[in-house]
């Protein structure tokens, strides 16, 4: 529990550095802090499947982002601290403080951490093995009980790839 909190605070610090650093490249590398801390959090939260996927996806995300930045520019855009900027930042801060404050109130009305009651998941846990024959309950959920979602998920990835290839093709419109 303590480790979890420390790692999450580390993630928050990483997020601040990632957004505020003057060099975009170091911002992206700080994003790695969040991703890898998240991986350890997944292990602590007993989710090995997620940890395996997250650690590699994180690496690939970083590679993609770094490749993009190296091809273009790594300079952070110059900030002008005019009155408009300060007002905007202030409104954003107020909004976020309200958001966090109300979420504190809300969590008092939700179950405690680790004490959630099962409804749908009860059947997955109790009867996952006899019904599907898969020892890995996560695999049983994503590919049998909720396989339709996974079809959608694979389709999202497919869509993204077709989209990337469409956007990065050489010529968009035919010349008449």
């Amino acid at each position, binding site marked *: 529990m303590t480790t979890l909190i420390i790692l999450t605070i580390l993630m928050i610090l990483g997020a601040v550095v990632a957004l505020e650093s003057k060099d975009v490249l170091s911002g992206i590398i700080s994003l790695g802090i969040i*991703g890898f801390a998240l991986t350890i959090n997944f292990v602590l939260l*007993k989710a090995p499947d997620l940890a395996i996927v997250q650690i590699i996806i994180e690496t690939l995300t970083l590679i993609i982002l770094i490749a993009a930045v190296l091809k273009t520019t790594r300079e952070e855009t110059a900030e002008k601290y005019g009155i408009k900027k300060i007002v905007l930042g202030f409104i954003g801060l107020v909004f976020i403080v309200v958001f966090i404050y109300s979420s504190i109130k809300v969590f008092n009305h939700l179950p405690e951490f680790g004490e959630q009651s099962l409804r749908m998941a009860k059947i997955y846990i109790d009867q996952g093995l006899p019904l599907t024959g898969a020892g890995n*309950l996560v695999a*049983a959920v994503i590919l049998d009980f909720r396989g339709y979602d996974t079809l959608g998920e694979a389709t999202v990835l497919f869509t993204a790839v077709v989209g990337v290839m469409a956007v990065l093709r050489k010529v968009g419109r035919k010349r008449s």
Partner: protein
Amino acid sequence: MIVFILAIILFSIGLYGILVKRNLIKMIIGLVIMEYAVNLMLALVGFRTGGIAPIITSEIPEAAKFVDPLPQAIVLTAIVIGLGTTALLVSFAVRIHEKYDTFDVRKIRKLRG
């Protein structure tokens, strides 16, 4: 409860980045942070005190207390969706840089404001 609040704080930092930052790559970073925060939140929701990873082997009896596998399945999907969105955004950012030679939102016509 404190971990939930921390996850919410992480989420709002990402939101803040999107609202305030003026660099396309920084905006993408903000979006990625938000996605991570939501993934963390879902994993936290699925945790049960004293539970073990939801993998039954011949050594572990079926009666053991497992953590909830459903949020994990959701996070798995969300991670992949997040990667797809990020890749698409990055390819757009590269293309925009090619046209304008800058990542600055204020120098790009439509994105202003």
